[in-house]
């Protein structure tokens, strides 16, 4: 196998033994990118020069020996939502087209301290608003399994890059499913941690009470390693929780005996793509055979989740995006006076989906509507969370399909925004309740497109979630299958 096809844990061992160098791995990655990027389009910005410099520095550290992070010398891709000092950061928006940040975000800083190599910034839906990466202002990213299809979104670039071996692993963000759904679309593992587990400082904000940073990787062990590297309390983020970071990667023993898995009936309704339902049910049966106990649970307020999400997320976003006004950074349109400058800058700088959500959010907060929409949504949110609290009294983890369908065709869902929103139905409640959730591959549909299964955990129970996911993964070969990129 070529170096770019390997995982973090496979490479870390060999790097430490000095069988290979970080420069070797990095060069392998960039060669792979060169060979495939025209077809996939995962990246907005590539950092070849600085990456090689980082790789050389990593090699020095490896040579010096001593304790080091498993990420030392590993090429990682970053969704272009992460603030990277000195590296163009656009959030896939025209309004930040030429923005070069003067500081590093916390997750990025942690990766750098660990000695990871930053490959580049990946494509995404503009301001993380979307489920297909089609809302990028700059380019289209294609699903490596079938280039006529979307890679999912909003972390589509990161998902495609991992699936296509254009990076060893990547970071994404998840507000309503933006790590898990693209992971499912691209046949990789994606994890959204508990809200507050990873610092949001240096992550361009979409919806403050929902956004979380998470790993996207080729297998569960890699996700665990990457999560360990970025998790932890950050005094610069008031919402980050001072809970100790477990050693997620050391608990993966392949056993799932006695674990209680809840299956919520509301997530197995008609309207799903039949192969998706079949694959997830088959996965559940397999886990049962391996010792898990399957329990029926109910999350009765599931049908309200999309409505709740699209009020709260858009309301918070409408406020978070007010800073893009052309005064301090980013795009500025020509205007005869201040007012016109504001109106034109934002009109020209934002894409249609972003504008739509800003409008919706502004409406939901405006005088006369605040109680009926925003407050009401926060109340129903409490009910949704309570559903999970109740369900978790009966089970340890909850299992669902990640998405009702596999990756759809590029352009298929762009006509009706509401239809696009409804496809988030299985992932969205997890963000509303602040719970951790991951998606891992559990099969393919009749066209060979990957199917993802979602595992949801209790607050700060990422360790158990990863353990069980890993146990399922060890008993299957899905994660070893790679897309054919001729």
């Amino acid at each position, binding site marked *: 196998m070529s170096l770019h096809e390997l995982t973090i844990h496979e490479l870390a061992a060999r790097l430490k033994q000095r069988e290979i160098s970080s420069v070797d791995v990095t060069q392998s990655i960039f060669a792979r990118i060169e060979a495939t990027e025209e077809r996939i389009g995962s990246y907005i910005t590539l950092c070849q020069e600085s990456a090689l410099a980082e790789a050389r520095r990593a090699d020095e550290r490896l040579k010096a020996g001593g304790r080091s992070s498993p990420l030392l010398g590993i090429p990682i891709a970053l969704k272009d939502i992460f603030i990277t000092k000195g590296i163009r950061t656009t959030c896939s928006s025209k309004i930040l087209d030429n923005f070069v940040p003067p500081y590093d975000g916390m997750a990025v800083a942690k990766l750098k301290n660990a000695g990871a190599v930053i490959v580049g910034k990946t494509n995404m839906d503009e301001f993380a608003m979307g489920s297909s990466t089609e809302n990028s202002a700059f380019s289209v990213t294609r699903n490596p399994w079938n280039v006529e299809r979307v890679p999912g979104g909003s972390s589509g670039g990161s998902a495609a890059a991992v699936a296509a071996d254009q990076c060893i692993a990547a970071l994404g963000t998840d507000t309503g499913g933006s790590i898990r759904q693209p992971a499912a679309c691209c046949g990789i593992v994606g994890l959204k941690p508990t809200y507050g587990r990873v610092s949001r400082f240096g992550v361009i904000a979409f919806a403050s009470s929902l956004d979380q940073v998470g790993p996207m990787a080729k297998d569960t062990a890699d996700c665990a390693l990457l999560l360990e590297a970025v998790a932890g309390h950050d005094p610069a*983020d008031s919402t980050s929780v001072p809970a100790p970071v477990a050693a997620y990667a050391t608990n993966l023993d392949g056993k799932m005996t006695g674990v209680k898995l809840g299956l919520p009936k509301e997530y197995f309704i008609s309207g799903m793509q039949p192969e998706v339902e079949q694959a997830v049910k088959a996965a559940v049966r397999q886990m049962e055979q391996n010792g898990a106990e399957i329990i029926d649970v109910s999350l009765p307020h599931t049908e309200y989740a999309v409505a709740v999400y699209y009020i709260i997320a858009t309301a918070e976003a409408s406020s978070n995006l007010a800073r893009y006004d052309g005064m301090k950074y980013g795009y500025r349109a020509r205007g005869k006076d201040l007012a016109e400058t504001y109106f034109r800058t934002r009109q020209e700088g934002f894409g249609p989906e972003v504008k739509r959500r800003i409008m919706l959010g502004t409406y939901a907060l*405006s005088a006369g509507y605040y109680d009926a929409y925003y407050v009401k949504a926060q109340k129903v949110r409490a009910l949704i969370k309570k559903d999970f609290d109740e369900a978790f009294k009966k089970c340890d983890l909850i299992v669902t399909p990640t998405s009702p369908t596999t990756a759809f065709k590029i352009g298929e869902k762009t006509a009706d925004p509401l239809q696009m929103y409804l496809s988030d139905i299985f992932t969205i409640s997890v963000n509303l309740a602040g719970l951790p959730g991951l998606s891992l591959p559990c099969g393919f549909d009749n066209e060979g497109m990957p199917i993802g299964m979602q595992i949801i955990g209790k607050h700060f129970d990422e360790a158990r979630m990863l353990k069980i996911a890993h146990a399922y993964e060890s008993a299957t070969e899905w994660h070893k299958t790679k897309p054919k990129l001729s």
Partner: protein
Amino acid sequence: MNYEPVIGLEVHAQMLTASKIFCGCATRFGDAPNDNTCPVCMGFPGVLPVLNKRVVEFAIRLGLATHCEISRRSRFARKNYFYPDLPKGYQISQYELPVCEHGYLEIGAGEGKKKIRLTRIHMEEDAGKNIHEARGDYSLVDLNRTGVPLLEIVSEPDIRSSAEAGNYLRNLRAIVQYLEVCDGNMEEGSFRCDANVSVRPVGAQELGTKVEIKNLNSFKAVEKAIDSEIERQIHTLSEGGKLVQETRLWDAEREVTRSMRSKEFAHDYRYFPDPDLLPLVVDDKWIAEIESSLPELPAAREQRFVNQYGLPRYDAEVLTGRRDVADYFETAVKLHGNPKAISNWVMGDLFRVIKERKLDEALRIREWPVPAEHLAAMIKMIDEGKISGKIAKSVFSEMLASGAAPETIVREKGLEQVSDTASIEAAVDQVIAGNPKVVADYRGGNEKSFGFFVGQVMKATQGKASPQIVNEILRRKLAAQ
């Protein structure tokens, strides 16, 4: 129709913390543009606010000093609007759940004492500064001030005149200065006031149309603007006109309020709880800690000065106007128990020097021109007859110049008052003998010439003779025949 004015005041006080409310930038005034900024207060993408604990402490301090209920649970809220000096496009403030509520401030004294209720006190961040270039079609923005912590103090519309408003502001300012949460400088902008003014027929319960007045840069401006606005409103209504609820600016030059350029966009601030900040929970223990560290407040101290030191209300008010002055006064009085004399010297000569040297511009005077110990000692010498009041003036000047103690100065310059009757008698005799014409004048009924004799005797004794003894001896000797 008789109208009564109904006035409420909104004060924004900049807090004296070292760093800003949500980031570690300095709150220093006067630095180069955009020197005291960082990605957080500049509203860069990806940044988050973290609350300065001292800001909460200051808010609770002020709340306790104004008899407020301290909310055990409060929240920050976003106030959303667009302006170049507001980099995030929203101001972090408090809306539904402020940290302090339902307090009051007393104004006036004795019979005229009145409670002005406070609706609320809350914490928020200040905005930056826009500088409008006279030439050209652009403005310049300095964000140094963005994120400086503010306390917003909102009064109920309990104020009924411009004088009461002035009173309220002075009292509030004294309190924030005493607490050292704000330096109370209206001219420099650390203590700002907007007035809400309406009028209604006397006896009516409903409130009239409220007009907000901004751009008030001094206490005088507040009082004048209120009077001007009351007059405008009454005049309008009397003519059968209608008042518009609006914001008006005080034009200090023409001394009228002006309607602001028509605001194209109605304000809908779309307040909602800031999801980047956690709920603020304040427990009894913290409140008790803060309460125990509160200094004696101006109103209480003023009353005590009247009761304990027998000072006239005017003196008490002036001396307790500043905490450092009140402290100075009490230090002196402890050393020498003549409060009235000390008060006179402090309010007279000492204040004059302080003003000349602009020492009062600091919130707390650290280096006094004359230490309290020296002033007390000097007054003690006067009271013991060791020096005269007149000589004391030169002693005071010398203390200012050299910093030496009064006893040292008096001794070195030989300024001790001559109370030795024999030598004074000798001097008097000499003067009387040397001025027969004036003696005859005086004995002839010209009272005024007495002063001439006093002057001559003082001259003969280099001003050191005790004036009382001189007077007494002169009178006796001049009367005798």
